[in-house]
């Protein structure tokens, strides 16, 4: 069995008095592709965003390759790590967003190069070569010098994925990356993710695409009301849900 990549223990998160994550435990091994499913408000996106500290969390531990993410612990007290240290840890994971979030004043290539130059301290030329390589991998080598506003939604999302992957993250986080896309553009993005999975990239995906979760995931996590309600092999889970809640959720979500 491959070694442990990500370890989440007792993760708790609240907004004011509303508890969104009520103690999430999860272990992920290298090369795993895990889909997180669940109805909206179940905490799946929040959990993903805690892993790269886009959300602070109030309790529990997240460890990436054994390294404590986000907080220093000493005895019973904990302190948020410095911005600089958190920035370094964020670069260990890559993230693709529902709204793509490409930098609109930069070309596709410049979007990919920014992190390489500023974070990885590569030269402009090295970064350009790498950006072209990854844009080629997502099928957009001809669009390197195009601005986001001139690309379709599907193309923008593929650039966003290239921007994240080019940083050579240990783990990729996908946050409902096809939800904002027109139906006919969903396929091209899923195709790119499938190819990355085939390359052995470790991935955690929050998704509403049940068919896709079923096909690419090595494991599925079903979240409900801030906890992991059920997890396992997608084929078994989808065929024979063990909990009433998952059975209900699968019934109401379109499986196509």
């Amino acid at each position, binding site marked *: 069995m491959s070694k442990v990549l990500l370890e989440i223990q007792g993760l708790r998160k609240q907004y004011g008095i509303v508890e969104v994550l009520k103690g999430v435990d999860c272990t992920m091994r290298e090369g795993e592709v895990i889909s997180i499913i669940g109805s909206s408000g179940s905490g799946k996106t929040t959990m993903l965003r805690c892993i790269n500290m886009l959300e602070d969390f109030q309790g529990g531990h997240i460890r990436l390759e054994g390294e404590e993410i986000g907080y220093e612990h000493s005895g019973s007290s904990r302190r948020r790590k410095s911005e600089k240290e958190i*920035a370094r840890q964020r670069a260990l994971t890559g993230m693709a967003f529902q709204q793509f979030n490409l930098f609109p004043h930069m070309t596709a290539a410049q979007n990919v190069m920014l992190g390489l130059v*500023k974070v990885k301290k590569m030269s402009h030329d090295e970064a350009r070569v790498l950006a072209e390589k990854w844009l080629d991998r997502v099928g957009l080598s001809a669009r390197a010098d195009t601005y986001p506003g001139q690309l379709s939604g599907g193309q923008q999302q593929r650039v966003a994925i290239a921007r994240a992957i080019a940083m050579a993250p240990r783990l990729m986080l996908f946050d409902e990356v096809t939800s904002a896309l027109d139906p006919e553009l969903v396929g091209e993005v899923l195709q790119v993710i499938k190819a990355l999975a085939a390359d052995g990239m470790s991935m955690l995906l929050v998704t509403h695409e049940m068919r896709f979760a079923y096909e690419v995931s090595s494991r599925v996590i079903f979240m409900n009301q801030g906890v992991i309600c059920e997890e396992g092999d997608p084929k078994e889970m989808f065929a024979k849900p063990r909990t009433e809640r998952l059975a209900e959720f699968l019934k109401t979500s379109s499986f196509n």
Partner: protein
Amino acid sequence: MGYTLNFAVVWRNFDQLLEGLALSLGLAFVSILIGAAIGLLVAFALIAKSGWIKRPAATYVTVIRNLPILVLVLFAYFALPQMGVRLGKLESFVAVLSIYSGAYLAEVFRAGLISIPKGLTEAGLAIGLTPMQIRTSIIVPLMLRNVLPSLSSTVISLFKDTSLAAAIAVPELTFEARKINVESFRVIETWIVASGLYVATCSVLAALMRFAERRLSVPR
């Protein structure tokens, strides 16, 4: 009317007007540059979460925007020396116009900042950029593009405000025009030419800003 227009005196002293205009432009350029630096810092302070940062910034903007600039000019030149702060005419005026433009530009910049989607900051964080790198590479460049159209009228206003330096005898365009007027009694001619110079200069400034706007616009 019995008044015959005669521009001869004005043309003889045209060099003086041009020197005045050059000084007006210089004062405006330096002050707006300093004001832009102040405005940028204050704009970020205005959108800060912490009240300790936000409140002083908001107070600065409110106070300055509710004062006529002429009052500030006179205060800085006549009252400050009484309080032990002695500045030359030019320095005193540049200080005032910088602080004044800082307050106006802060408001313009703030409007440009709040229209930038939060997702772009998150995307920057996600690739490991520090908050400062995100500001310099993403937020500020986008903010400037957002505000260029409204920046043009602010810059032109601030340039025209240099005429108030005449009140403390800074030899800028208005001051020079008044001198020619007093020496030659050619009232109408002098102010027509001076006005023409202001209008021409402002038109050039507006054209430059439109050019910058076109050059920097994000293709879509």
